[in-house]
């Protein structure tokens, strides 16, 4: 018995999305702190900037996994965010270090509002995709189990003497 590769992808994506949700929450809190004067924008940018690329890479990583697993629907659902990430990073300000946020422009009300909105949207997206992966994961697992049952029954029909073992696995 084994998972299919797709099921593995879903489980991995599930875990990684949980991490991304934390990233998004962190992002929202950070910008909220900026807006309410608690933090110096330089410090805040220094803490936020290193997190940008990991987030994007994680997302990119499981997109690639879904691609390999030929999960086209899931990949299709993720493509807009992937494209957005690429666009966002391409249009970042001139910076010598990785990251997106420039302390000199971050306090502009438009940019601040944009970043906050971005955080909320991403949080929503990750939450939805979390449940989607959970479901997908479940489905894949069931699917694999179902396939196994199918396989077993096929085998059973040929080898009747091993009938006893398999019903147990179906119960799992």
């Amino acid at each position, binding site marked *: 018995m084994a998972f299919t590769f797709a099921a593995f992808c879903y489980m991995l994506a599930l875990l990684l999305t949980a991490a991304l949700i934390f990233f998004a929450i962190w992002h929202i809190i950070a910008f909220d702190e900026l*807006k309410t004067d608690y933090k*110096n924008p*330089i410090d805040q940018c220094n803490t936020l900037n290193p997190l940008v690329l990991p987030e994007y890479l994680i997302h990119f990583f499981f997109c690639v996994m879904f691609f390999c697993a030929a999960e086209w629907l899931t990949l299709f659902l993720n493509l807009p965010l992937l494209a957005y990430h690429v666009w966002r990073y391409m249009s970042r300000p*001139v910076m010598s270090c990785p990251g997106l946020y*420039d302390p*000199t422009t971050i*306090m502009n*009300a*438009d940019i601040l509002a944009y970043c906050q909105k971005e955080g909320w949207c991403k949080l929503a997206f990750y939450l939805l995709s979390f449940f989607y992966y959970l479901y997908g994961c479940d489905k894949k697992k069931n699917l694999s189990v179902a396939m196994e049952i199918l396989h077993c029954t096929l085998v059973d029909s040929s080898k009747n003497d091993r009938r006893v073992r398999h019903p147990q696995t179906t119960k799992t």
Partner: protein
Amino acid sequence: MSTAGVNSQNGTGTGQTYANGPTQAPASLHQVPGIGSGMTHQPAYNPLQAKAPTPPGLYPYQPVPSFNSSPSAQPLLSSPLVGRPPSHTPPLSASPGPRLPHGHATPPPLAAAAAVSSSSYYPSSQHSMAPTWQFNTVPQLPGSVAPANVPFRGTVGNHVNPPASLPAATSSAPFSSTPPPLNNPQPPGPGIPPTSMHGYTQPGLAPSPGNFMSPHTYPHGRPGFGPPPTGPPPAMKPTPPPPGAPVTSATPPPPKADGALTGNGPHAPNNFNHVDNKMAGQTQPGPPNRHVGHYPSLPPGYQNTSHAGPPMHPPQPYTQPTQPYQQSLSGPGPAQLSPSLAAMSLQSSTPEALRVVNLLQERNLLPPTAVSAPTPCLPQDLQKINCNPEVFRSTLTSIPQSQSLLNKAKMPLGLLLHPFKDLSQLPVVTSSTIVRCRSCRTYINPFVSFLDQRRWKCNLCYRVNDVPEEFMYNPVSRSYGEPHKRPEVQNATIEFIAPSEYMLRPPQPAVYLFVLDVSHNAVETGYLTVFCQSLLENINALPGDSRTKVGFITFDSTIHFYNLQEGLSQPQMLIVSDIEEIFLPTPDSLLVNLNECKELVQDLLKSLPNLFLKTMETQSALGSALQAAFKLLSPTGGRMSVFQTQLPNLGMGALQSREDPNQRASAKDIQHLSPATDFYKKLALDCSGQQVAVDLFLLSAQYCDLASLGCISRYSAGSVYHYPSYHQQHNPAQVERFQKDLKRYLTRKIGFEAVMRIRCTKGLSIHTFHGNFFVRSTDLLSLPNVNPDAGFAVQMSIEENLDDMQVVSFQAALLYTSSKGERRIRVHTLCLPVVSSLSDIFAGADVQAITGLLACMAVDRSVTASLSDARDAMTNAVIDSLSSYRHSVLTIQQPGLLAPACLRLFPLYILALLKQRAFRTGTSTRLDDRVFAMYQLKYQPLAYSVLLIHPALYRVDDLTDEGALNISERTIPQPRLLQLSVEKLSREGAFLMDAGTVMYLWIGRNCHSNFLTQVLGVPSCSSVPENLYLLPELDTAESQRTRAFVGWLRDQRPFFPSLHIIKDESQLKPHFMQNMIEDRTESALSYYEFLLHLQQQISK
């Protein structure tokens, strides 16, 4: 100490609690002559007169608000609207005769009031201190103000004083954290290299002969910065002074009789003195009896909007909102205005600002002299104490009630600030407790309301606060129990000496570090000589105290430090060639105390120009030099002045040339407006964190990538100066400008380790800041240095509806360390009415401020998006606002391009912006010039940037003394402002164009020989030399007049505009002609075409 003073006086004061009514009047009479057009004294600044004369019955003129009577009668003194007719609107429209020239329409009592109040200005200006516009003269009522038990704050001010006049700030001695360099036992010899691997050599400097003891103790202050020297009475209100001299005998009681804090030296108790009256006597006596018909009559064919009012003068305090235009007869009548407006106006007349102007028909829109700021429609008592529009100005003087209303009006809402402006007089308060709101930390200001004697209600967050015991005592009247008469509550601009809670560390000393480019290119330009000469001349005028420190770094491909430690016989040069990993060879002796090591510094300055004469080093390691300078300054903070003449091409921060000369004139999008690297920005942020500001002087003929280099100043709150094609021999005009700028730069006031916070009434919020600074939080700007020539702009948004408010307030508080090591807070508070109708919003629009703010926004737009985007946005701004006016305010549609009178110049200014160097396309513009123009638009205070946008044109060959100003014995002729169109030029005349940083004097081919001989000293036009940039000093009346006029224009701004005298065939003629904004060029529309374009868009 000051507390003691207060308490002791509290004791005496309690007896005469409410008794200051009678005593005030004499005090104020004393004060009027001394203070000139003080900010707090705006007798005639009266919205009632501003918009239209008021029927005497409705608003009796009350120069002295009723506080003089028993205070118990008026407990709610600052809730202005209580018991008033519906808010601010009546003043707008209360004109008895809708279409009469104001002067005649004024009912007698008011006219008398106007005359009387303006007359109070006359004596003041005549009594003004002799060098009226001298920047640093500190007249300061010496004996009278100096109190007995409080140190005389007057001289401890932040001005540039000759050291002789400054007692060493003994109090600050404990603060000096760094040990005096002379104690450093380091031997002067070469035995101190920290790391031998970074070899640095120490060629000694040749000691220059002669002991330069700096005999040029500069007369501190070059004449004339700050507000233009005119605060003539006409400026105050549209109500023109009646022809004939004002009634000088009838000096009225000043509006706030107890605003006496500034003038009544002898009466002033010790708690506060006014310090900054160095420009005392701002107000120049305007020509009292200037005739209306003075100006040459307009050419036929224009709909003459005759100028009934007396001439205005360039930006001046308390100028009236709109020119007293006689209403055009062809204009649509009030009947066409919306019902709401009609309902608003009691007498069904239109406020002047809303008079409908058909721009396509009325050509002659420029006022006779400079446009002035509109007056907010506030009750008279509030308006009188409101902040000076030169310091604090809003694009909409009536704040819309909600964001949706603002969106409907399609005009930007924002503030334009000039917070550290040199002020003629500034009340300074020393008090152990600074009264602030406990929840929002707003400083107490004139617009708070006192619920009773013991409680006041914050006007920003509406929290009720207690009045501290100390505040109950009024030091001006020396009475107790009148907190509402304290100077804090009487002045919208005030300065506090901050107690130690406002310091994070001991106040830093004044520290100046000069970073000089000495590569071959730099030596070629010859700027080093000028710089050293200027610094030598002004070394005693550098603002500072006994702790002032200076240091020098020069650089080419290596970095040279100068050991100026006391005890050395001559300065030592230390060369660090490891530019990748910069270090300081002798950290302690590179920044030295100026007083102790003045001779060494002078030696160095004298030998520096010769030291690098033969250098062949062409590379420039600016990035490393900046890092070294940052390391040197970071322990203390201070000011770094960087002089750069070429593209930095070595080490960190090296840049590539990005400009393609073939693309200069491209009509397509301009590239490379954003920085190429973030090295300079990051360094600037580091500097900002260590309270170091970087000022950049760029003297270069080639491309220097100002877009990248400028970041170093932009985010560290420095300033940028640009001298394109600077050369000692080839460009004498630039050399002169550089000299004058340097002198101003070295001697002007400076504030260190500053922050500025802008607070506004709940419901409003700050959207974006413009200027040079680092934004540290939503309302806080970090300004390592603040200088008097820095302007800021703030975009605002309305987050919550302001339904239940009648006024909103804005407060800018600038906390800084003066060059004398005092921590000070300068607070400006502006109060504006809230309105609910679109027509009111339009009536309060300030076209210059709107243009200034739009320019700032367009600069941002062109950097983040593209230049064409920014140009479109500006055009759309004018289209949107005019179409909103047409569709929402006007009810009867009629053909033409209609604009309210207050916005009549809006299309012209926008067109001027589109043709400005920063935004123009199709005309060859060097990238650096363009970027510098953008910097200027963002950084210059509005008063100066308006000239950069729309230059002023005058005819100067027929100057007369008629209507001239009289400023300190000089007669300043006042020619009429002309439209920027070639049709205004004539071959027979000579025309002066004042474009802010540069002036052109254009001599027509057939110019009157009288003018040529009498002013230029040449027999004929053909013999006017090329490259003439000085007016010869001839002893003729014409020459004197012309020079006086040019000098007066120059004195109005802190930078020095160079003058170019050009003829038809001059090389500079294209520059002159480019400023002819109303004319068509190959690549840009003429004004009329632009109007047609607007009309087409609006009627779509």
